[in-house]
C-alpha cells in the first residue's frame, strides 16, 4: 500500500515525469545500534524539488535516516541513491549534500563569510567566484553586510540563516534540515518557516526535513513520511496523512483526534460500514481487512469534523457538554458521550457562536461526515 501511494504521487508530479529518476531513493535501508533497530527496511523515493518531511516522535528513526542519507552513518543493509547514483559507500564529503543542524553548528572560529565560503573552498573554486557566491548567498538569506561578523554575534534567527546559506551555497543535490526550528522562539519560528519554504521553492532544491512537530510538517511539506519505532508508517501528502491516516499511530500522532468505540456492520472491497451508537458511517475497508462482522473497532474522528445538532436528531450521537474552552478563533467543547468513548469527546467549533449556544450542561447531538472518518482494529489485536 505504501508503494502504491508513492507511485501515484510520482505520476502526479510533473517534474518527476520529466526527469524520470528520484532525487533520493532508499531501498530497504536498515540500521542497527547494538541490539536495537533504529531504522527498519526503509523504502523511500523523493522526487526532484520535493519537500519531504520525516515526522515522528523522538527515537522513531528519523534522525538516523537523515544521517544515513548524509553519510554520517553507514547502513547495515539496503542501498541509498542520490540522483540515481549509488552512494551507500560514498563518504559524506563526496555526497554533495547540504545540511542545517538543530544547533546550526556554525564554525565558531570563522566569520560568517568564511563559514559560507567553507564548502566552496573545499571545491577549489577561485577567490573572486567565492566572494561573489558568498554575497549572493548572504543576499538570499537577507543578511547582506553581515559577512565579517562572528557567529556568536548573531541572533538565533540570523545564525540559522547563515547555516542555511552555508548549506545552499554549494548547490547541494539534497538539502537536509535536522529540526532547524526547535531552537528558535515561537514568534520567529513561523516567519522562518515561511521564508525557508519560499527559498526552497525558488531554488527548487530537494529537501528532507526532520521534525517531531506535526504543525510544521503539515505546513511545509509536499509529502510527509510518518515514522515510528524505526519504521515508515505512511508516506503521503499532508492532507492525506491528516484525513486518511494509514494506521492508528499516524491517526493519533498527526493532529488531535477522538477515539470512539464502534462495531463493524458490513464490509465490501473498498468501503466498510460501522456503527457508533445510533450513528452509521462508511469508512475505508482496507484497515479492517482482519476484522469480522460484529467486531469492535476504534473509530478516529478529528475534533473539527464533528458538528453539533439538536439532541434529538436521528442518527446522531447524544452527549452532554462538560467543558468549554475559549481558544480565540474557535471553541473547544468537551462532550460526555456515554457508551462509546471513555473520555469526553473533543469538538472544535469555529467562531464563537458555540460559546453561547452550547453552555455547560447542554444536551447535544453530534454528527460527522463519513469522508472524514477512519476506523482501525483495537490496539491489542492490531
Amino acid at each position, binding site marked *: 500500500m505504501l508503494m502504491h501511494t508513492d507511485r501515484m504521487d510520482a505520476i502526479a508530479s510533473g517534474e518527476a515525469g520529466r526527469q524520470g529518476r528520484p532525487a533520493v531513493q532508499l531501498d530497504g535501508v536498515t540500521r542497527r545500534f547494538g541490539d536495537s533497530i533504529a531504522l527498519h527496511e526503509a523504502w523511500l523515493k523523493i522526487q526532484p524539488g520535493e519537500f519531504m518531511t520525516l515526522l515522528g516522535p523522538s527515537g522513531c528513526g528519523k534522525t538516523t535516516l537523515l544521517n544515513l542519507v548524509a553519510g554520517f552513518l*553507514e547502513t547495515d543493509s539496503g542501498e541509498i541513491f542520490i540522483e540515481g547514483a549509488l552512494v551507500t559507500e560514498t563518504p559524506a*564529503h*563526496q555526497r554533495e549534500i547540504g545540511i542545517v543542524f538543530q544547533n546550526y553548528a556554525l564554525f565558531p572560529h570563522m566569520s560568517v563569510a568564511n563559514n559560507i565560503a567553507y564548502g566552496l573552498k573545499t571545491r577549489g573554486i577561485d577567490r573572486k567566484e567565492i566572494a561573489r557566491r558568498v554575497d549572493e548567498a548572504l543576499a538570499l538569506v537577507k543578511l547582506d553586510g553581515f559577512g565579517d561578523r562572528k557567529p556568536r554575534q548573531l541572533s538565533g534567527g540570523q545564525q540559522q540563516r547563515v547555516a542555511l546559506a552555508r548549506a545552499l551555497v554549494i548547490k547541494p543535490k539534497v538539502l537536509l534540515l535536522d529540526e532547524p526550528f526547535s531552537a528558535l522562539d515561537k514568534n520567529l519560528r513561523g516567519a522562518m518557516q515561511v521564508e525557508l519554504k519560499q527559498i526552497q521553492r525558488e531554488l527548487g532544491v530537494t529537501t528532507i526535513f526532520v521534525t517531531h512537530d506535526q504543525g510544521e510538517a503539515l505546513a511545509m511539506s509536499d509529502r510527509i513520511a510518518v515514522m515510528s519505532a524505526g519504521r515508515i508508517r505512511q508516506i503521503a501528502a499532508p492532507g492525506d496523512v491528516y484525513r486518511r491516516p494509514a494506521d492508528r499511530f499516524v491517526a493519533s500522532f498527526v493532529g488531535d483526534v477522538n477515539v470512539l468505540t464502534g462495531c463493524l456492520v458490513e464490509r465490501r472491497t473498498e468501503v466498510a460500514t460501522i456503527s457508533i451508537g445510533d450513528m452509521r458511517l462508511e469508512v475505508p475497508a482496507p484497515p479492517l481487512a482482519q476484522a469480522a462482522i460484529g467486531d469492535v473497532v476504534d473509530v478516529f474522528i478529528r475534533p473539527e469534523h464533528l458538528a453539533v445538532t439538536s439532541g434529538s436528531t436521528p442518527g446522531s450521537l447524544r452527549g452532554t457538554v462538560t467543558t468549554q474552552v475559549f481558544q480565540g478563533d474557535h471553541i473547544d467543547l468537551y462532550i460526555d458521550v456515554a457508551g462509546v468513548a471513555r473520555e469526553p469527546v473533543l469538538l472544535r467549533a469555529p467562531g464563537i457562536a458555540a460559546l453561547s449556544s452550547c453552555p455547560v450542561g447542554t444536551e447535544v447531538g453530534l454528527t460527522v461526515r463519513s469522508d472524514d472518518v477512519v476506523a482501525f482494529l483495537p490496539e491489542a489485536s492490531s
Partner: protein
Amino acid sequence: MTKRPFLGWFVSPAGLVALGLTAAMAAVFQFSIRTYIPGSLEVGGFTLQNFAAMLRPLYALAFWNTILLCFETAAFTLFLAYPLAYALVRTRSSAVRSFILIAAVTPLFLGEVVRTYSWMIVLGNNGFLNTLLVKLGLVERPVQMMFTAGGVIAALVHVTMPIMVIMLAAGLSHIDRNCERAAESLGAGPIRVFLTITLPLSMPGIVAGFSTAFAWTFSAFATPQLIGGGRVSTVSTLIYQLGFSSFNFPFAASLSIIGLALSLAVIALLRQATRPLERLASAT
C-alpha cells in the same frame, strides 16, 4: 574513505611511548628478582631474596610509616582544601575567584624543591615560626620542627593542596545549584543544605582528591628527604638511599614494586570503601 581516518598516525607514536614505559616497568620487575652483587652495577642470578629481606622490621616500619604519613597528609589536605574549593566555586566576585585560583594553583607549578625549601625556612630553629613563637613569648627556646613527622606533614599538605583544591572544585562546580535551592525551599538551613546536599554531591571530587593526594604523597621524595633529614624514613627515601648510596638496585627495585603494589591497593580499597557514599551522592 576509511572508517577511521589517520588511526595509525594517531596511535602509533603513543604506542611507542607506551612500549617504552612498559619496558621501563618490566626492567624494574626484572631487577627486583635479581641478586645484588656488592660494589658492582652488574646483577646476579634470579632470586626472591629481596622480597624476603623486606620483612625485616626496618623496612616493614618504613612502609607502615609511609602509609600513615600519606593518610594524615591526605586528611589534613582535604580539611583545608574543601573550604578553599567551596569559596573558589561559590564566590560571586570574580576578583576573589581569580585570587584564590592563582594562590591555590601557583604552588602546583613550583615543584617540590622550591616548596620544600620554603618550608625549611618556615620550620627551622631560626626560622619564621620559631622566631614568631619566641618573640610572642609563647615558648622560651625554639621548638624542634625540622626533622619531625609533623614538619614533613605540614610541608606535604602544602604540596598536595593545589591538586586537591582543583579536584574538589571540579566536583563542586558540577553540582546543580537547583538541588540546593530545592532543599532550601523545603526548609533546610544553610548548614543542613551543606550536609545533606552539597557534601554528598561532592563525594566523587572528595574521593578523587583524597586518592590523588595519597598517591602524590606516596611519590614525594624531596620533602621527606630534606625536611625529614633522614630521621623520617619513607619508601621513597629508602629507595634513593639504596640506589645511590649502596648501588643496591635490585633491592631498590623490589622496594619500588612492593611500594607500588601497596599504594595501588590502598587507593583501590579507598575507592571501594567510599563507593556506597558515592552511590548515595548520585541517588540524592
